[in-house]
């Protein structure tokens, strides 16, 4: 038998009408099974949406919106809430008119229809996709007051697709083929250079996300999956892959996605996403509303170089750290969920989390990063995030020292 509850429980002043009065849903019939052939969330969850920030960009077409991390649980991001970043808006592609071409340094340049691709053996793997600019607004100090905006350029999805290896083998890569250039079918014609080693290792040409076909805003009908590497390389609406013997140095790997250091020099080809974590609850958009007592702290962690065996959490800005409880499956280059349950005494807190990845790397502080990179590198900000909690349980994005 279960243990006996000993804790003194609160007593109600009087009976709760939510119990003593009959609610309509207890008595009358609800909607039938033909009402929603494709279901949607409860109207009471209408606030759980991707959000954009108008002042960030000139228009909403080449722009970004953010995943509401503080409303999510576990490690899977629902498809409807995966953040979006497009450079020429969402390409609305008729899959019957979509083709994938392989050309360049191959024995046999090929064209595939979607039907052709569905005849290759396929795999199912879970990966996070993080925009290299995620948390980029925070380099100069705390700026946006919500985890959706500071950390919401990430999603974690189960992909089904064909290993890119099989498609390259089909065309026959020539011995001097050392780079690929995936290209999108949207009006930005997105391109990135990827070394052949990565292409043959774990890249996938994905057709499905979280069990169903890709969503239009995530590249329907075809997207390149580049596990652990920055999201911009995961070319959406994939229409062509050229094999070459040198990188292309295209706009998204020169003007953008290069990391300017303090001395004016810039890193190029900073592909891997460094290990990172963030507390999603409590956070500015998800304050503690229940007052002192048992409190669930939770968050997510990920690394482009492996798994996350450990996350540490501090309640006092880093004086003392505690090991969080890791929850749910631990997949390579996937998001991990952690929890830390504690009794809040009602006093102010300074919350931080610190990820350790399977290579032994430990998530640095923002100041450690700034020391190496300066303030202008924009991308790859994986510094430790601090939320200050006040006596009322409200949370604020702060920095500490």
């Amino acid at each position, binding site marked *: 038998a279960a243990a006996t509850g000993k804790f003194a429980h609160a007593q109600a002043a009087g009976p709760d009408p939510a119990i003593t009065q009959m609610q309509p849903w207890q008595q009358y019939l609800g909607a039938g099974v033909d009402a929603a052939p494709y279901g949607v969330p409860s109207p009471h969850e209408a606030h759980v949406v991707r959000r954009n920030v108008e002042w960030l960009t000139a228009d909403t077409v080449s722009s970004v919106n953010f995943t509401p991390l503080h409303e999510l649980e576990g490690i899977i991001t629902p498809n409807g809430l995966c953040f979006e970043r497009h450079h020429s808006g969402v390409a609305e592609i008729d899959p019957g008119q979509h083709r994938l071409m392989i050309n360049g340094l191959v024995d046999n340049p090929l064209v595939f229809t979607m039907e052709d691709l569905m005849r290759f053996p396929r795999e199912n793997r879970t990966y996070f996709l993080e925009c290299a600019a995620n948390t980029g607004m925070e380099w100069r100090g705390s700026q946006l007051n919500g985890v959706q905006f500071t950390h919401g350029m990430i999603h974690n999805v189960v992909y089904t697709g064909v290993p890119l290896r099989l498609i390259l083998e089909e065309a026959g890569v020539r011995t001097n083929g050392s780079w690929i250039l995936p290209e999108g079918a949207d009006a*930005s014609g997105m391109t990135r250079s990827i070394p052949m080693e990565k292409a043959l290792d774990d890249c996938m040409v994905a057709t499905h996300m979280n069990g169903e076909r890709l969503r239009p805003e995530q590249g329907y009908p075809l997207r390149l999956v580049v596990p652990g590497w920055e999201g911009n390389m995961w070319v959406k609406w994939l229409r062509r892959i050229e094999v070459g013997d040198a990188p292309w140095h295209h706009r998204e790997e020169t003007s953008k996605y290069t990391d300017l250091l303090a001395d004016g020099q810039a890193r190029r080809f900073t592909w891997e996403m460094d290990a990172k974590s963030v507390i999603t609850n409590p956070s500015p958009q998800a304050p503690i509303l229940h007052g002192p007592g048992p409190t669930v702290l939770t968050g997510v962690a990920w690394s482009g170089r492996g798994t996350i065996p450990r996350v540490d959490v501090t309640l006092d800005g880093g004086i003392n750290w505690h090991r969080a409880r890791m929850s749910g499956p631990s997949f390579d280059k996937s998001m991990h969920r952690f929890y830390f349950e504690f009794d809040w005494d009602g006093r102010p807190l300074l919350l931080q989390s610190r990820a350790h990845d399977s290579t032994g790397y430990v998530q640095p502080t923002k100041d450690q990063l700034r020391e190496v990179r300066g303030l202008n590198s924009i991308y790859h900000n994986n510094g430790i995030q601090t939320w200050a909690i006040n006596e009322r349980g409200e949370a604020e994005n702060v920095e500490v020292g």
Partner: protein
Amino acid sequence: QENPAPSREGGFGLGRTALPEEIAAWDIDIRPDGQGLPVGSGDVYTGEELYIDYCSACHGDFGEAVGRWPVLAGGFGTLDDEDPHKTIGSYWPYLSTVWDYVHRAMPYGAAQSLEDDEVYAIVAYLMYLNNMVDDDFELSNENFLEMAMPNEDAFFMDDRAATELTVFAGEPCMENCAESIEITARATVLNVTPESEEEATATPEATPAAAAAEVVETA
């Protein structure tokens, strides 16, 4: 995470051979070594006219940009400043990138609508705006590879393995790691975060730190 999908000796025989016309239609990428560059030419003067017609509404007559659309010229010597201006002239390492990108993605909303000679001319004008050439310059596939970009040597290969990975490792302090901790910066001071669906479109009360807007323009 997965039992690998098996390769097949000799392939699966799926797909079909791409025809030369098909490859020609899609193989539009240009490389720094000139691979992909079509035959053609265009001068600054022609480029200026085309640019005024197709580009200046967003990028400004001199590449200085209208509103928050991207700036295309200037910014020399600012890369090590507090507020660096990264433009074609001040930052981009290769001219081929300009040709490739303008041809591939611009004008915004009418991608791939420019003729090859028009692209040469517009690129020539962008070089002129960035003080790389005189106003009588003509760019062509012949002289393209002679054009060097001022900031090319500032780029180096990702060195995080040496400068960061080894540093950010090891067992960290878990107890009594500091005497005291103070708050040094607060987001609420800026007040630039949208607070509800409606406010997300409102103008912020404070000017967000310079980096913020750039980040998402560049995400």
